């Protein structure tokens, strides 16, 4: 009892005086604004999430219900997911997509870092020209060069029907990654570099020991973007991997899923969920890096 009174006495006393008319209007206005904003927010949230919900619900419908206008499944056919997993090639698509995205990202990072560093910190004649060329490459739709590239990979190197034509070029730098990383590296103050030089570090060691640790957010960002790009790539696999079902990726396989496997919407939606889910899961675990990465592109650009 005594303790409670003591605590009461310690807390600052809030005098609740009756509100003035001005304050009341202000508070009402604030409340209305709160309601308006949050209603809009809820409406927007519905717009963004309902498609996921409907897709998920449809994925659990039975064959006969999939074509009806019902929104809720009558029977919850979890076996649809089993059926999709057992579809020949589904796991192969997974494997291929992981290899393409993983290997591609690793190669991109390794090859883009030195180029970005040179463009950010070295002075040389032709730097602006190089930068403009990098930017031009960024703007280039892949369809512009696909014909000669396809003929090159397919006829010269016999690599059509594989994903190598998509992975190998990433070992030579990716324009977008180079540009992004360059913008980021430019924000690293030169004092650090000068200090390293004074300590006797050559350019390579400066890069590795001093710059890289500070560039982690930038590198994480380009790695995420590249992984994303490869995971979502449809055109590339369509050109190079379509002849060989053993090389298909998730995006290409999903698109051919509906017709090829004589399925209706329920199984197709189940497959869609299985393609969506991993990306969403990765996001939940790497939220901070994702958002930082996207911010980096916009704000620094």
């Amino acid at each position, binding site marked *: 009892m005594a303790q409670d009174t003591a605590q009461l006495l310690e807390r600052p006393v809030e005098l609740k005086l009756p509100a003035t008319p001005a304050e009341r209007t202000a508070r009402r206005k604030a409340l209305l604004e*709160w309601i308006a*904003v*949050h209603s809009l*927010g809820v409406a927007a*949230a519905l717009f963004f*999430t309902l*498609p996921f919900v*409907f*897709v998920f619900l449809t994925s659990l419908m039975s064959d006969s219900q999939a074509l*009806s*206008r019902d*929104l809720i499944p009558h029977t919850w056919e979890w076996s649809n997911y089993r059926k999709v997993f057992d579809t020949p090639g589904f796991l192969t698509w997974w494997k291929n997509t992981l290899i393409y995205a993983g290997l591609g990202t690793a190669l991109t990072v390794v*090859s*883009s870092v*030195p180029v970005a560093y*040179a*463009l950010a910190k*070295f002075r*040389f004649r032709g730097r*602006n020209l190089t930068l403009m060329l990098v*930017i*031009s*490459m*960024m*703007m*280039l*739709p892949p*369809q*512009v*060069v696909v*014909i000669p590239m*396809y*003929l090159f990979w397919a006829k010269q190197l016999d690599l059509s029907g594989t994903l190598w034509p998509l992975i190998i*070029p990433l070992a*030579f*730098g990716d324009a977008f990654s*180079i540009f992004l990383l360059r913008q980021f590296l*430019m924000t690293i103050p*030169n004092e650090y570099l000068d200090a390293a030089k004074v300590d006797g570090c050559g350019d390579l060691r400066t890069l590795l020991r001093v710059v890289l640790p500070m560039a982690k957010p930038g590198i994480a960002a380009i790695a995420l973007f590249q992984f*994303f790009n490869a*995971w*979502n790539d*449809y055109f590339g696999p369509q*050109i190079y991997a379509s002849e060989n079902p053993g090389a298909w990726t998730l*995006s290409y396989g*999903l*698109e051919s899923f509906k*017709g090829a496997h004589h399925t209706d919407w329920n199984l*197709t939606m189940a497959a869609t969920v299985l*393609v969506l889910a991993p*990306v*969403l899961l990765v*996001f939940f675990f790497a939220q901070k890096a994702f*958002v930082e990465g*996207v*911010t980096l*592109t*916009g*704000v620094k*650009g």
Partner: protein
Amino acid sequence: MAATTHTLRAKHRRSRLRTLAFLSPWLIGFTVFFAYPMISTVYFSFMHYDGFKPPTWSGTKNWTYVFESYPFFWPALRNTLWLVVIMVTLRVLFGLGIGMLITKIKTGTGIFRTLFYLPYLAPPVAATMAFAFLLNPGTGPVNSLLEKIGIPAPGWFNDPSWSKPALTMLALWGVGDLMVIFMAALLDVPREQYEAAELDGATPWQRFRYVTLPNISPIIMFAVVTGVIGAMQYYTQPLVAGKVASGVIQGAGTAFEPGYPEHSTLTLPQLVYNLGFQRFDYGSACVVALVLFALSMAFTALLMRRRGGLIQAGD
């Protein structure tokens, strides 16, 4: 004296070598994957090549064919214009709107932000198929709801006047990336400027126009530019939407129909695929590729002029 100039030259050479060494991956990449194919594409655009017999010179035949006789070329160009003007604008505006909304939401900001951002992560093929299902005029949930309320339900991906708006809806659904950068930009606007404006008696609209807009205009520019690049490269979504909506499955004697319905979802990149990988007219495909290149470079040039700051001079 000779010694110093000698060391200086040596130093210069070393620094040049160093530059070359660091740039080497990109130099090789540029030559093999950009310069060589570009020259090749120009070369092939004047040749008749079907992949089997050796190429033969055909002069301007392919060019005349694409510009005058290929029935899909001009619809695709018109569609690209539509996408650039309407889809990009709407996406930027919607992104800005959602960004502003999220800065005003005080309760549960994190949850809202996550939910708004999620659709952006969906792989394009998955997202397009989801929307093709949702907007199916016969059995999709959207039309069932609309009809229950009594609003006439459009044909979405099956109706040529609604297919691009449907694609725009899909693009708006995935506006998460723009939302995030606008949100960051909006939060970066110095508070003092808002306070000063309020003191001056500015209305909310005036505050937006004279404080917010100038501060975030670089981001708006960035959003527009990346949006236009995306519009030029728009390939997967219209292709998948058209294929799924038409219900026509390749094979069994059915002929492929680009841009279902009625060329409304045709884009230039799809033409390169149609000419090159379905008709196997590599020459004409290269012509379209060059048109695509020219348009993209025109926008790049525009960007360079308006935002020279993109190439920050740096140190």
